[in-house]
């Protein structure tokens, strides 16, 4: 049954949306948060466990220092206050994928509190997203549902549990209620999530691949008539795992809640789910007493002490943040906003930077990655990074051009050779014996031959009509197998018709 929706523009006119995001980022530590089981994506089920991550009787958690370091890094990047003392608490609830039937998380004493992230929108507007906290917790195992349709939990006969993921460290970044976004709420949410992804990747603390579940978000939304009103009742859409999904969830929830409120209805405080196939959110569980998680300090884990020296040590290792880096490169490379956005949309910033570092000019690098190579990637349906060509290859080709050893046409043929797996640019050039013909004698002869074959063109040229010049150059190129330099050919032709 389709739910009643209000048109988006109308909904935003009548109501003020307030939203919040709880983003789970899986850390890429070597071992789990509380035990030394190695973490690997896609291993055999139940092979990445110690007694601790399997929740065996008698086992005890001991915190992984690298996970704490990663949390501090993220806290610094999000301008958080990093608490000298933080504490792990137990969140008690039963679920088959939870080895201890409680999650170890941080409750009232998180490692990171009270920060913000400045998010840049497509038109250059900067929106400040307030951060409530970024705390450390451990993940649960994975259920595979058997016997139902499409592996869905509904209608399944039973579930199979693989606890490999249990105990993998997560950081949950919780925003404060985000106000003042208006109809740009979905856009801000999407930009925020992308910014988080870029930051955790720049920090090297997460692979941040949403499709692998390294990153997922719970999207909260409530509406109110005016910004002066108190917050309305909110819905919480759980585990949305794509950027578009997050944007669409917000759009959908704004339209759905607006329709209910406009009819005088009430919003249920419930958890919902984003359904990619129907592009809607579906109602889930209404919040109830069952959500009494009985938090209390985990008596197996004493308080975490993060000293000023520890923070300073981490601070010294902080890389440049993505937004600062983009602004710096934009200035260094003399780009317009639009040019920069094209690079970002093509996911080519790292590649271009690498190419420049390898010696190419920014313009040259940009031309290859956004032109020829983007077309090739599109045609093959792969990302630029997956193409069998490196920034060093591109820089090498650029150098050959600059040195006058290749012209544009030969350069493209060289890149095509690299893509075809023929080796490095130098190897491709050597293999095909690509070179610009500098022997004016050979060019001279070819020009003479072209003149003889095209007497009418020669007449026109002599008469001052330069338009058919291309015919002669084309013929010369053909005769020299593209190795002549067009400029040199033109020079010889001009000298001949004047004589």
């Amino acid at each position, binding site marked *: 049954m389709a739910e009643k929706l209000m048109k988006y523009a109308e909904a935003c006119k009548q109501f003020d949306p307030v939203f919040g995001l709880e983003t789970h980022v899986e850390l890429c530590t070597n071992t789990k948060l509380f035990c030394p089981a190695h973490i690997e994506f896609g291993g055999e089920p139940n092979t990445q466990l110690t007694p601790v991550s399997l929740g065996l009787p008698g086992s005890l958690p001991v915190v992984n220092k690298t996970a704490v370091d990663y949390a501090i890094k993220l806290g610094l990047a999000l301008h958080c206050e990093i608490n000298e003392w933080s504490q792990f608490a*137990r969140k008690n609830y039963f679920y088959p994928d939870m080895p201890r039937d409680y999650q170890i998380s941080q409750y009232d004493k998180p490692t990171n509190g009270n920060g913000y992230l400045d998010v840049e929108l497509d038109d250059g507007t900067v929106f400040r997203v307030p951060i409530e906290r970024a705390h450390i917790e451990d993940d649960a195992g994975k259920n595979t549902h058997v016997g139902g349709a499409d592996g869905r939990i509904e209608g399944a006969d039973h579930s199979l549990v693989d606890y490999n993921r249990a105990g993998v460290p997560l950081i949950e970044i919780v925003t404060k209620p985000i106000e003042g976004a208006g109809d740009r709420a979905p856009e801000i949410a999407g930009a925020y999530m992308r910014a988080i992804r870029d930051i955790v990747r720049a920090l090297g603390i997460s692979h941040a691949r949403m499709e692998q579940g390294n990153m997922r978000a719970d999207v909260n939304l409530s509406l109110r008539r005016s910004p002066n009103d108190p917050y309305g009742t909110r819905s919480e859409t759980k585990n949305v795992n794509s950027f578009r999904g997050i944007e669409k969830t917000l759009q959908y929830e704004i339209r759905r809640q607006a329709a209910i409120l406009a009819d005088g209805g009430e919003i249920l405080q419930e958890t919902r789910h984003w359904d990619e196939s129907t592009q809607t959110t579906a109602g889930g569980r209404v919040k109830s007493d069952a959500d009494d998680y009985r938090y209390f300090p985990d*008596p197996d884990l004493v308080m975490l002490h993060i000293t000023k020296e520890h923070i300073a040590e981490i601070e010294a290792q902080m890389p440049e943040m993505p937004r600062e880096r983009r602004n710096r490169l934009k200035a260094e490379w003399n780009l317009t906003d639009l040019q920069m956005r094209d690079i970002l949309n093509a996911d080519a910033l790292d590649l271009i930077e690498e190419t420049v570092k390898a010696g190419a000019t920014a313009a040259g690098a940009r031309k290859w990655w956004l032109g020829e190579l983007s077309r090739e990637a599109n045609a093959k349906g792969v990302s630029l990074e997956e193409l069998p060509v490196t920034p060093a290859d591109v820089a090498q080709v650029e150098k050959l051009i600059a040195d006058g050893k290749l012209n544009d046409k030969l350069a493209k043929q060289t890149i095509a050779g690299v893509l075809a797996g023929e080796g490095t640019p130098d190897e491709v050039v050597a293999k095909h014996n690509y070179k610009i013909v500098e022997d004016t004698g050979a060019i001279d002869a070819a020009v003479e031959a072209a003149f003889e074959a095209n007497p009418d063109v020669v007449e026109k040229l002599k008469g001052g009509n330069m338009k058919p010049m291309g015919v002669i150059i084309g013929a010369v190129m053909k005769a020299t197998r593209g190795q002549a330099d067009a400029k040199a050919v033109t020079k010889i032709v001009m000298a001949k018709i004047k004589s």
Partner: protein
Amino acid sequence: MSISTETAALVKLSAAEQAAKIKAGEVTSRELVEAHLAVIEAAEPSIKAFLKVSGDVALEQADAFDAKSAEDKAKLPELAGVPIAIKDMIVTKGIETTAASKILEGWVPPYDATVIEKLKAAGMPILGKTNLDEFAQGSSTEHSAYQTTHNPWDTERVPGGSGGGSASAVAAFEAPLALGTDTGGSIRQPGSLTGTVGVKPTYGGVSRFGAIAMASSLDQIGPVSRTVLDSALLQEIIGGHDERDSTSIPEGPRPMVAAAREGAKRDLKGLKVGLVKELGGEGFQPGVEARFNEAVAQLKDMGAEVTEVSCPHFPYALGAYYIIMPSEVSSNLARYDGMRYGLRVMPPAGVPQTAANMMAYTREAGFGDEVKRRIILGTYALSAGYYDAWYGSAQKVRTLIINDFKAAFDKVDVLVSPTSPSTAFKFGEKMDDPLAMYMNDIATIPANLAGVPAMSIPAGLSDDGLPVGIQFIAPQQRDEVMYKPAAALEAALEESWGGPIWNDLKTPWLGE
């Protein structure tokens, strides 16, 4: 099978004496293990201390020890080669571990607790797993899901609990040593009721890794023995820092053996002993008080300066304990849900066959009454709306009790009290009255709440012929401080009795 007089004489030796015989080449570890296995076989029908006897494992370990070169043996701790029994609350790789609960029936752990690794490294064979109240919850061992353990002093009576199995095994000469766990008195109270020595080390002094959790902030593994020196020797083996336990103290074990040997000289001049005013009087049996007072008089005779100290918040300790302990129990025992190990019970027909219902019916069938009572109480104490009133208040009481101890230890070196208000009671006597059962631990609980070390040693027999225990309590991380007066008192009392308390124990299972 009848027990030879040689065997009876051998098992009646203290662990240190047995170790000395090994060193002197008079006996092998295998012979010691065989002697104890023979006693176990003879005693178990009337004592029922063991849930599982691991004779084959013990013999294998004994042979491995005996095969070592003299040089390698010399590198091992003093108790090397002496066998030991383990409370079934401690995880043993390859040996069924149940916590005396139906919910863990048949579970064979794939790993060893840290203390078990240490015992193995020390060349100490493991005789088997001893009975306890289910998940160490109780004071009589009657809450075991499998069997009732009998007190060797009177087999109509309980051995105390929860570690009644370890205490009875050591008292009945089935094992010279045992390990227990003490959350509110589970080593010391059975020690008191069976005439054994039982020690709860400083919290964090012995690794909890592999001790099945009851209440994590209170649990501590400790020794059970027949002499003070044996406990000191054992505690130095099992103690020390463990990187697998976040609550483990970084410093190594204290010099307890030296303190016990020093104490045996019976000179306590300059030692200040405090009698805890709140741990005596009303509710304590006259026979218990009489033996306690005589013991204190002995301490004075040896030069100790005895004064009374007040710990005004101790009357609140039981309340705080019965909030903190069940709260942690409710969370620690959540993992027994029928998914990964142990029992699984599907819901009856007519009830949806879901994972949630499977868990609920498994836990209903797998847990006994006392465990369920504590889980429900703890679930309540942590639930929204009541947390501050109960859990929050209990943690404040904990601070007050720690402060009471600090103030007391500003005045005296060591505190003493009766270990348990009564001697061993009859089966069933307190089973229908949880509160009366809980009162057993009134004198032992404060030490758990404050994390300080405490031990019980026999103070004699009450008018009913049953053992009475005296408790020594020392400051945090100063475990050696209680060992000295305990060893001194042990020596003085044995002289006054004309021999160890064991001379009064009738042991028909030894063919006597």
